[in-house]
């Protein structure tokens, strides 16, 4: 018996998805508007009773053409759309893009800018993992963890607002440094925030670590082997949960990560519980990096001393003709980037995010190809789901941590 599934009752001749079933097999379409899909993901499931036989993820519901749009903006303007891909970790996106452009330009940012970038990116990793933790716990049935996690994340968003004026989509990292220096007293604010982290993580783990429901729903569910995960292009915490200690920060250090001391949490079984353990441990490693970054934050400028790339300070623009010309040129035309191509990989909260940037020597990127980790992680879900129970699908989707702004771009 075969069944026909249609995407919806539109006046389009949508391609029909034909699935051949047999016996008690039935097809079930989950999403795209399902609370447990963490965004707009549609999964077409073939089930026999409660067992998932085949899962087919369908994406593209959040496709906004960011790669196309970036080609029509100047190198600096493109930062603002790159932000909007992975909306849970805009700082990581920004960092990857500006590092790629800086490589093409052959410039190195001052030490202060580099350390502030590491500090904010690690805060962003904590924030992203907290959203993941809260929403996953909500899916599994623990509402209070959502409140605990979002309360802590709120502190990070307040810090971002303090430095950049925006809580999300900060566009704070610029080619050549930072948009502006961190405000006075910011370091103390970060310290006050960091003081809250260990205690709050203890509270959250006290709720979850020995919670029988949490353990039953996650342990042994959605396991994937290391070989399979590597073949499917899985990176980040999902890969490290399988026992592969691959972290771009250690393997291909960027932005001065080799100066920092931190561990790479790794688990063994590759199931949902291990993905949870790896992420909560990573929060504490990011906490360590933040502490070190604060301790070694030097003074000095936060942008490179190159008026062809970085805007001159505003007071100077009012007095100096040359500064005014530079300001006008940068705001209207931007700057040229030498022709070439570069691949910049970095460890976003979801895994290896890669920017393959091609320049033809003009003031706009010729091509910004983004290797979204969540894209590949999403297409590894069938390997985790097949053979699992229907109810486990929710736990598996949650544990993979897909962010659909980045999957669909």
């Amino acid at each position: 018996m075969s069944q026909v599934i249609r995407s919806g009752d539109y006046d389009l001749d949508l391609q029909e998805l034909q699935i051949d079933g047999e016996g008690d097999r039935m097809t079930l379409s989950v999403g795209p508007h399902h609370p447990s899909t963490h965004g707009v993901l549609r999964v077409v499931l073939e089930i026999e009773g409660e067992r998932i036989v085949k899962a087919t993820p369908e994406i593209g519901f959040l496709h906004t053409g960011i790669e196309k749009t970036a080609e029509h903006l100047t190198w600096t303007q493109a930062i603002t759309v790159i932000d909007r891909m992975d909306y849970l970790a805009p700082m990581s996106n920004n960092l990857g893009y500006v590092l790629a452009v800086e490589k093409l330009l052959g410039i190195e940012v001052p030490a202060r800018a580099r350390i502030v970038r590491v500090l904010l990116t690690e805060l962003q990793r904590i924030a992203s993992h907290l959203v993941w933790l809260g929403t996953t716990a909500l899916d599994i049935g623990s509402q209070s963890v959502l409140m605990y996690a979002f309360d802590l994340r709120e502190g990070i968003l307040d810090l971002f607002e303090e430095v950049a004026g925006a809580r999300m989509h900060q566009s704070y990292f610029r080619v050549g440094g930072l948009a502006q220096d961190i405000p006075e007293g910011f370091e103390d604010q970060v310290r006050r925030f960091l003081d809250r982290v260990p205690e709050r993580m203890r509270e959250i783990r006290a709720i979850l670590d020995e919670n029988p429901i949490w353990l039953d729903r996650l342990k042994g569910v959605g396991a994937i082997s290391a070989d399979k995960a590597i073949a499917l292009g899985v990176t980040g915490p999902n890969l490290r949960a399988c026992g592969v200690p691959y972290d771009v920060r250690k393997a291909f250090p960027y932005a001065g990560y080799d100066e920092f001391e931190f561990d790479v949490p790794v688990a063994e079984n590759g199931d949902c519980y291990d993905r949870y353990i790896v992420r909560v441990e990573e929060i504490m490693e990011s906490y360590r990096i933040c502490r070190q970054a604060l301790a070694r934050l030097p003074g000095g400028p936060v942008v490179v001393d190159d008026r062809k790339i970085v805007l001159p300070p505003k007071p100077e623009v009012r007095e100096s003709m040359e500064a005014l010309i530079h300001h006008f040129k940068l705001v209207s035309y931007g700057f040229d980037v030498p022709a070439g191509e570069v691949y910049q990989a970095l460890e976003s909260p979801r895994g290896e995010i890669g920017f393959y940037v091609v320049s033809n020597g003009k003031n706009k990127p010729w091509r910004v190809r983004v290797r979204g980790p969540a894209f590949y992680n999403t297409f590894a879900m069938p390997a985790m789901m097949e053979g699992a129970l229907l109810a486990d699908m929710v736990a598996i989707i949650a544990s993979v941590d897909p962010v659909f702004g980045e999957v669909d771009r």
Partner: protein
Amino acid sequence: MSGPRHYPEPYRGGAAALAHVRDAIVPALVEAFGDGVEPMETPFDQPQVRVAPDKLEPVARWLKERGFNMLVDVGGVDYLPRTPRFEVVYHLLALPQLWRLRLRVPVEEAQPEVPTVSHLWPAADPAEREVWDLFGIRFAGHPNLTRILMPDDWVGHPLRKDYPLQGPRAGLPAHAADRNRYHAPKLPGHPPGTTGLPGGAKGGK
């Protein structure tokens, strides 16, 4: 929380691994395949080779057998008006050796087709679908080469350079404007032009 944990040593030493790829693997690859593989300079210490489309499958197999177990990314680039117009770019990674290699496959506009590598790395399956969807480059032998980001019945391939960001759909077939329209609900009394108009047309013209 439990006491301090002991994790396995993370993979390190990407810079030395890249040098090894440049000095050992790329020359061996060129020797094995002759004309089909052309070494390129390595900007920013990122080794890359140009591979002829008909040699891609054996080259990929050769590399996979020697340790490149992860296909990190497949992406397309449109170099209009250059010929060959397109390029499909493969980023390979070997774990735990941390070798990275970029394969760049030039593709002619007249015959935009390269062989699939999805039977070697399953990660290529969705990535090649995306390149087909956005660039119109076919992957011969792909099990399910359908659109992935755009709607199934979309006409045109948006990341091509001659596909306009907005405005009249120059170069697209006549039925594209009709088919690719935005399906927004038509509200009573809603001014025309802000929703539901084909071709990115705006109201007030």
